[in-house]
């Protein structure tokens, strides 16, 4: 959570996260750049510039693949949620690795000619009407622009400035970038490979991303949040006994929004399920120190008014709710973010001992 903008609000977990990421990336590059030439022992080795370009390009692909696997893994198994916590650092570093790859390519294949290298990149191959020999560089340029935009707008300032829904939509560009990378590699280096180890790793990585997303989507579809039944303009949620102390029940409202109804010490409150930070699922969070805590980045809200504790300023919409015939009902019309709603006590509630 942040009350002012600083480049990075470091904590121990972020340090550990970045350290693991750096160890992985440095190990990849060290093995590729310095160990593999010795093992290959080619009489006439690959040009260092080409070798370096391949190392950084392959590394960026692996990084992007790992990044894109984290989301669905966290949906499949909540224990992966910590990997989501600092993922944007991973993304920013991927952008720098990809830029290094592009720099080697630009300063080697597109340099030394009478044309400006940036112009040469655009005109050297214009066989856009054919598949074999297609200017695969175009896909790389597109992917790099996407990554640069995402890295440049990764800070919370941009999320607040653009609003979380717009920011989320913008950052969905990562999928287009990945698809472009797949096309870039498929129409480029894979066309000339004789040894197919990279081909196998590449296809395996791309299939892992696609497969995990498909599986997570299927799980969501199968066990997704139900649309609450309507009763006289109110939406039925569940019986109060179905919600444990400190937890929530999530229901889909007719307008497509999700409401999270919390039981806090025997009192029911309803807030929007979407965190004001990155639309994280508040209903899957926990009540910590009397505050609902988002499972993605730990943003907290008072469940009675949807406000983050001072000095923080984030707010989420609240919902009016009532108990009718032992069933929790929610008014589907959300209150403005930060509106206090008197919690509804659960009659005869007693905390069940752990």
């Amino acid at each position, binding site marked *: 959570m942040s009350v002012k903008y600083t480049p990075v609000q470091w904590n121990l*977990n*972020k340090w550990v996260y970045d350290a*693991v990421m750096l*160890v*992985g*990336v440095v*190990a*990849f590059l060290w*093995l*590729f750049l310095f*160990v593999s030439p010795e*093992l*290959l022992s*080619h*009489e*006439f080795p*690959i040009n260092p510039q*080409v070798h370096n370009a*391949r190392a950084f390009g*392959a590394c960026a692909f*692996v990084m992007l693949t*790992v990044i894109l696997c984290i989301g669905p893994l966290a949906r499949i198994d909540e*224990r*992966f949620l*910590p*990997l989501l*916590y600092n993922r944007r650092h991973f993304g920013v570093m991927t952008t720098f690795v990809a830029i290094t790859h592009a720099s080697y390519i630009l300063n*080697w*294949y597109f340099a030394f*000619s*009478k044309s400006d290298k940036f112009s*040469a*990149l655009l005109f*050297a*191959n214009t066989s856009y009407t*054919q598949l*074999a*020999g297609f*200017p*695969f560089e175009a896909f790389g340029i597109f992917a790099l622009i996407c990554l640069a935009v995402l890295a440049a707008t990764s800070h919370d300032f941009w999320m607040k400035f653009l609003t979380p829904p717009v920011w989320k939509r913008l950052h969905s560009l990562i999928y287009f970038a990945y698809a472009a990378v797949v096309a870039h590699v498929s*129409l480029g280096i894979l*066309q*000339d*490979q*004789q*040894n197919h*180890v*990279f081909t196998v*790793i590449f296809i395996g990585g791309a299939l892992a991303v696609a497969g995990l997303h498909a599986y997570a989507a299927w799980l969501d579809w199968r066990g997704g*949040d139900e649309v609450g039944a309507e009763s006289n303009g109110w939406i039925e949620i569940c019986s109060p006994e179905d*919600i*444990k102390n400190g*937890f*929530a029940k999530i229901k889909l409202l007719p307008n497509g929004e999700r409401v999270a109804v919390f039981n806090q010490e025997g009192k029911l409150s309803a807030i929007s399920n979407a965190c004001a930070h990155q639309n994280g699922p508040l209903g*899957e*969070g*926990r009540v*910590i120190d009397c505050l609902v805590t988002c*499972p993605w980045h730990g943003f907290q809200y008072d469940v009675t008014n949807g406000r983050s504790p001072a000095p923080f300023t984030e707010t989420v919409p609240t919902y009016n709710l009532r108990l009718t015939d032992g069933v929790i009902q929610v008014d589907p019309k959300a209150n403005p973010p930060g509106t206090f709603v008197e919690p509804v006590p659960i009659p005869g509630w007693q905390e069940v001992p*752990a």
Partner: protein
Amino acid sequence: MSNDDKPFFVGYLDVPGPLRRFLLLACVAVIGIFVATGFLIGSTQDEPPASGFRFDYGRQTVTGVIELTPYPLLRVTQGNDLIKPGKTLMLTGQGKFGVDARAMGLEGQLAEVSGIILQRGTIDMMQLAGGRRGLKMIEGDAPAMETEPLGRWKVAGEICDGKCLNGAMRPGRGLAHKACAALCLVGDVPPVFVSTQLIEGSDFMLITGPDGTRLPKAAYDYIGQFITAEGDLERRGDMLIFKIDTDTLEVTDE
């Protein structure tokens, strides 16, 4: 809904005990993925053909007759220990530049060339030093040079630039190298055709357009692709020249 007692991670708090072991394994797995992929991809790169600049030979200086195909060739008449008389060299400048402009007006003249050799098995190209150090007309009568017509041929292989093919870049051919090869050709580096089979004892030939013109731009779309093409073949010294008929260019899978 998270209606259970699973450990709950909050980034700015300590990691819950039951999650630590899992996250430790996840960290090892992530690092393991990078180590394994870095090692496997890095250590299975294809070996480029044995080719490259031979700076170790030092600068070579030979004399011969300049021929414009229109791409300039040197028919060596007075060689050295490395480059014997009778050899034909393609000539190129530094970077992605040919030497067409420098050789203009020297056709059929005796000239001295000096530069660095590019070798791919045999020596077929020289990168000339700058200015008159690299190419200059010399006094003397140029001997007549024979050109042997070899008839019409249909060949299968790949169009690329002679400089990268000869090791200026490793790897220096293929579709991933297409843009670079096109830039070289735009810069007047001699284009070559790499054949899948030996033709008259050679696996490559300098290519030109029909009737001694430059390689038509229409052929550029085919760079790096496996194609067949027809044209007239001739031999100049130990160099084959293929006058490609671009109307016969055809992409093939075989």
